[in-house]
């Protein structure tokens, strides 16, 4: 079983306009651990740095500072060469993440071959069909090409591809946001089932609080590159502490309040002095991640 430890992750992008250069901090000191068998949801608005975290974990971007380490069951850090055997990613848009030129078989066979899971044509095909069965797709789809599949089917193929190297840590970057409402639940239930079966560690990135609460054990709320609130899923959603989380929770439509004007919602009392702080529900207090590396320097909530 593999654990993924993300420590003090920082990503800065350099923006150039003419000769001037400015640095944009997209991710600021993000810190969390993905444990086998548990789902962590990363919630936040567009541009809050969620996808940048995902891309850094998938090693598509290099962190400016901080570490991302996959730790094996025996407690030793997994070597870079084998990192991708353990950590895989499901992309947001299934219409873009499958190469239109190649068959479904190609998408599943390549990771199998690259990670030494299968050798020879027969074995590869057999394993690829097993993967398709695991994601509840008919084996006949093997020779199809992506444009012949529906969005939900494509996302299942993308999940199968992530599983092909035998990954134990899956980063799902808004896996259902581009899908029809009708196929969202199927894909999410599939992820939950696979997680139970394989004891996967899942990072579920989303902006949908409802699915985050239902499918994850704990929630990290991200705003402008920082994690502003963290804790068990129910606690974060039912008793939001950070002003940003409160607006986020209040923004979700509530059937009990049907007919009332949305603007009549009481504006969450903006605690402007706490914008840069992180509320940790497990510790039950506010933490200042900039103040010190130790968690001792905490402000009482």
């Amino acid at each position, binding site marked *: 079983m593999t654990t993924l430890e993300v420590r003090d992750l920082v990503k800065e992008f350099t923006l150039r306009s003419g000769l001037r250069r400015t640095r944009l901090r997209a991710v600021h000191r993000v810190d969390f651990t993905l444990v086998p068998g548990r789902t962590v949801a990363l919630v936040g608005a567009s541009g809050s740095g969620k996808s940048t975290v995902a*891309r850094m974990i*998938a*090693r*598509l971007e290099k962190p400016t500072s901080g570490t991302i380490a996959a730790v094996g069951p025996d407690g030793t850090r997994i070597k870079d060469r084998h990192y*991708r055997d353990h950590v*895989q*990613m499901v*992309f*947001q*848009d299934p219409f*873009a*993440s*499958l*190469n*239109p*030129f*190649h*068959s479904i078989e190609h998408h599943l066979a*390549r*990771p199998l071959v*690259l*990670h030494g899971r299968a050798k020879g044509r027969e074995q590869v095909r057999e394993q690829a069909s097993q993967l398709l069965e695991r994601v*509840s*797709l*008919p084996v*006949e*789809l093997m*020779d*199809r*090409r992506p*444009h*012949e*599949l*529906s969005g*939900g*089917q494509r996302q299942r193929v*993308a999940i199968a*591809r992530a599983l*092909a*190297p035998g990954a134990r840590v899956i980063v799902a970057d808004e896996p259902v946001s581009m899908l*029809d409402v*009708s*196929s969202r*639940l*199927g894909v999410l*239930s*599939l992820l939950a*089932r696979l997680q139970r079966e394989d004891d996967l560690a899942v990072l579920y990135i989303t902006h949908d*609080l*409802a699915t985050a*609460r*239902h499918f994850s054990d704990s929630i990290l709320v991200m705003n402008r590159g920082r994690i502003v609130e963290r804790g068990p899923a129910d606690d974060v*959603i*039912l008793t939001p502490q950070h002003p940003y989380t409160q607006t986020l*929770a209040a923004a*979700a439509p*509530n*059937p*009990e309040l049907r007919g009332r004007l949305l603007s009549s919602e009481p504006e969450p009392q903006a605690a402007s002095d706490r914008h840069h702080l992180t509320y940790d529900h497990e510790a039950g207090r506010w933490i200042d991640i900039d103040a010190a590396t130790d968690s001792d320097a905490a402000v009482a909530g």
Partner: protein
Amino acid sequence: MTSLIPSSSGLEDLPPGAEPGAVPAPASTRRTGWRAMLPSWTPKLAVGLGLVVAIALFGLIGPVLAGDPDTIRNISLTAPSGDHWLGTTQTGQDVLDQLTHATRGSLQIGLLVGVMATVLSAVFGVIGGYVGGIVDEAFSLFSNVMLVIPGLPLVIVISGFVPADQRGSWTIALVLAVTGWAASARVLRAQTLSVRNRDYVAAARVAGEKPWRVICVEIVPNLLPVLASQFVFAVIAAILSEAGLSFLGLGASNSSTLGTMLYFAQNGFALQREAWWWFVPPGLIIAVFGCGLALINLSLDEIINPRLRRPVRKRAARAASGSSRNSAVRSTAA
């Protein structure tokens, strides 16, 4: 806030495989393997292929069947007749015999230049676009420099420098390829920049593919329509500029092409003496060959772009389903 998830008990009822509206497409319309690489059969493609194949066969087989194009007879500038289907030149050479050899020569050069220019543009455009950074800057600068050098004058200068006895078709082809690749390299670079940022390239990298494999297997196939059209245009451009060069007397010295035919026709005052059979056939072959290649070019787009292919599929699917309304319409039409 508990109402965020209205029916959480109902979620488990749905098996993960059950997904409404996810019916697989009917198997009859699917194309697998190499068949998927071929464009669908359209009138455009049929005409284009027909023209190109006819001219290619004419150039391939013609010289074997035809007589010696250099035989000089004492029948100067005779109009087409039973003996000489396309008449004779000023020195009594058979125009048809000459045309077969000239077509072969032009096709050879066109093919050579097409291949060389496409390879050059692919190397500079695709690799520069994918790698980025300083490599991209260098490759872009180089292709930009090649782009602003005016092609034909450079070709004339280079051809002028190379002594006539060393000016074989390979030299001419090389010169044309070197001056002709830059524009398509820019197009390919732009296309590569767009493809490079697609998720499937990122997914291939996450799967652990090596950079050269990402380029060759994930990116280049999606550039195939662009590559193919660049190749086809390179062939057309090469045949045309070779004809231009030969017409100016700067062409390959040891080979006969459609351009040299026009050159001799011009020198023999074919136009003034109304010997249309001398200059119209080579000009027509160039025009028709270019037209055929352009038609093929249009059909090539359908290999990759499924959006262009969809109307044909829909029609096939509708025909297969055989709904009563359609069959009724069909029977009345028949």
